[in-house]
């Protein structure tokens, strides 16, 4: 079952399936490559941005960026 990261913001771990959209290259450059484990750590008070852990570091993403990431 795959879904967009923007729709799966409850804390928990999943794996990146695909990166697409306008920010795809930049997201991959930050280490979000397909196959990687990605953990949603928490969400900000208004729901976004979300804080994720990938390749051992913490990164915050806005909704528009989370939409570029498909996880499974």
């Amino acid at each position, binding site marked *: 079952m795959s879904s967009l990261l923007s729709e799966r913001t409850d804390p928990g771990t999943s794996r990146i399936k695909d990166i697409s959209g306008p920010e795809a290259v930049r997201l991959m450059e930050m280490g979000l490559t397909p196959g990687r484990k990605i953990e949603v750590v928490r969400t900000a*008070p208004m729901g976004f941005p979300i804080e994720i852990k990938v390749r051992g*570091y913490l990164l915050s993403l806005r909704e528009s960026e989370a939409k570029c990431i498909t996880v499974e």
Partner: protein
Amino acid sequence: MQQSLDIALIGNPNTGKSTIFNGLTGMKQKISNYPGVTVERKVGRMTIDGTEHRVIDLPGTYSLNHKKVDEKITYQTLIGEFEHERSPDLAMVILDASNLDRNLYLATQVMDLGIPMIVVLNMMDIAEDRGLGVDPERISETLGVPVVPVVGKRRKDIEKLRQAVAGHDLSRPEPLRWQSDDAMNSAIEMITEKWLESYTDLPPQSHPIEALRLISDNQLSDAFKNHPDRGKADEIVAEARKLIENNGGNPSADEVLARYNFIEQCTDGQEDESAGEDTLTDKIDAVVTHKVAGPVIFVGILMVMFQAIFSWAEPFMNMIDLIFVQAGNWLSTTLPPGMLNDLLVEGVVAGLGGVVIFLPQIMFLFLFISILEGTGYMARAAFVMDGVMTKIGLHGRSVVPLISGFACAIPGIMATRTIDNWRDRFITIMVLPWMACSARLPVYALMIAAFIPDQTLLGFFGLQGLTFFGLYFFGIVMAVLAAVLIKQFFPTGEQTPFMMELPSYKMPKWSDVFKNMFERGWVFVTQAGKIIIAISIVLWFLASFPEVEVPQDVQQAQTTTETSFNAQTSPESYKLKNSYAGMLGQAMEPVIAPLGFDWKIGIGLITSFAAREVVVGTLNTIYSVEGDGEVVTLQQKLINDVDPETGEPVFTTLTALSLMIFFALAMQCMSTLAIVKRETNTWKWPIVMFVYMTAFAYLCSLLTFQVGTALGYG
């Protein structure tokens, strides 16, 4: 004998790059702006065994893909394209050893450029604490370049780096060792031969990375947008992409993925499992980014910060004020009277005082900001606030500068440097002066005390207090509206990339914190200071010339006790009225009359361009108030002032309101304009700011006065 080298420091943000830069160069640093852009350029010098080397601290960046201006500068400096500076002799790539994968990405890009390099593994202590098992030798073997593991905070490790520089044979790394795909290689060759070599004058060492960028970028990159033969480039790039696609590849993604595959050979991609858990950061974050506690803590920190720049700075500011007044007095009595005396005392010394007075606020604010940045908290504050701020077109990081603007716009505008996205930073700068700064307070205080009735509303709210609050609130509303409006002028979609790293918490290095604090003060004094002093001298000239003979009857007149006002009761007042500033004020009267202002306020508006609070002093002079700062007397005189023709009072509650609204909105602060020039690196934006703010001020005052008059409140 060793040759003198140009050494470039490159690295991701939050890798401790500036600590290493400071460690290598000590106090021998120079800060300026890169020409034409808003990125700061830091160059330092270090001497090893008697040879002096130049160290260039390049902006922190995650990639050389140059979508952002600081990436572009880093890239152009490395390939020797920036302002015809030659490419550096040695690149020192600083990596966070506790976050290797992503940090190595940039290192592989730098390797492609074939510049002799040293990889510095910084924060080895943290990596070891987390049991990450970083293996410098393996990284060195895989990359084929020297790797130096360090803890940048340690003096002996800085020495290790100096030795690594001295011992470097300046051999170039093998580029593209991560490249395995034949189709990709042919595509790179195709673009290099058919486009880069034939149609551009880019240096050959940049060709591979330039070709990769063209392949991964679906649109032709900005650099070639205006190229006369770009149609040709479009064709070649499309062909190259097709070549990769036909081979089953993805031209937009393959390069990045290949680099990460290569990187994982150095690191095993070890961070996937629980190794490297940073429990301290997790624990702190559970509190400071909590949905409820997070914003509360942030507001608390803001309040302390605000208190510091508002109240703690005040004694220092009073002291500076006193010193400059004393210096002026001393100078004016020591030098023979005359024009030079006046110029020095009222132009130069007063102007210099007007510059130095801001230092306490700037330094207090940057003490806090350096600590918040250094510990890693600032990114959390931005994370917590971003949801609200994006609603009005700003960034989570805009909050701290905007709140600082309530004390003073200058440190606030300097603080926007923490916003790394230019659009967000620009909008924050443009709306920030509408936060009601402390220089508006004396004006508000004078006008409210004199013209707003001391009554209570609903038996509870004081009308005077409400007016104060209303003016502050009005400024915020205008800033928000302006932010939404300015955002419309930016074509780049609805949102700018956020993708902000939340670095691990650590103790800041205190010497870096204090250094940053003094650095900001120094940048302000040296770079905005000269503009401020120049304008001060112009304003002094306007208010002091032409010199007029003061008529006998004015010279003899004593302080007036009459209720009807006579503007020519003292020599100073007479001189000011007949100066260029006075003439301008009178010439302006038709323009400002619809706002309810007369020529006396006109003069005040001109002199208050130096700083808003100056209007009080000017009115003191015009109304011949004896002694400085006798606000009560001035208040009474304002209330008593009547129009000689109509016999009506010059000031009413409505005029006062109109004037306060004008002061709330108009750009009347040369120091702010000077710092906007410094921070945006062009005169265009301070001029736009001046025009749009003053136009809005005029419009709102006009509306207030005309509607008020029509409703019978005149």
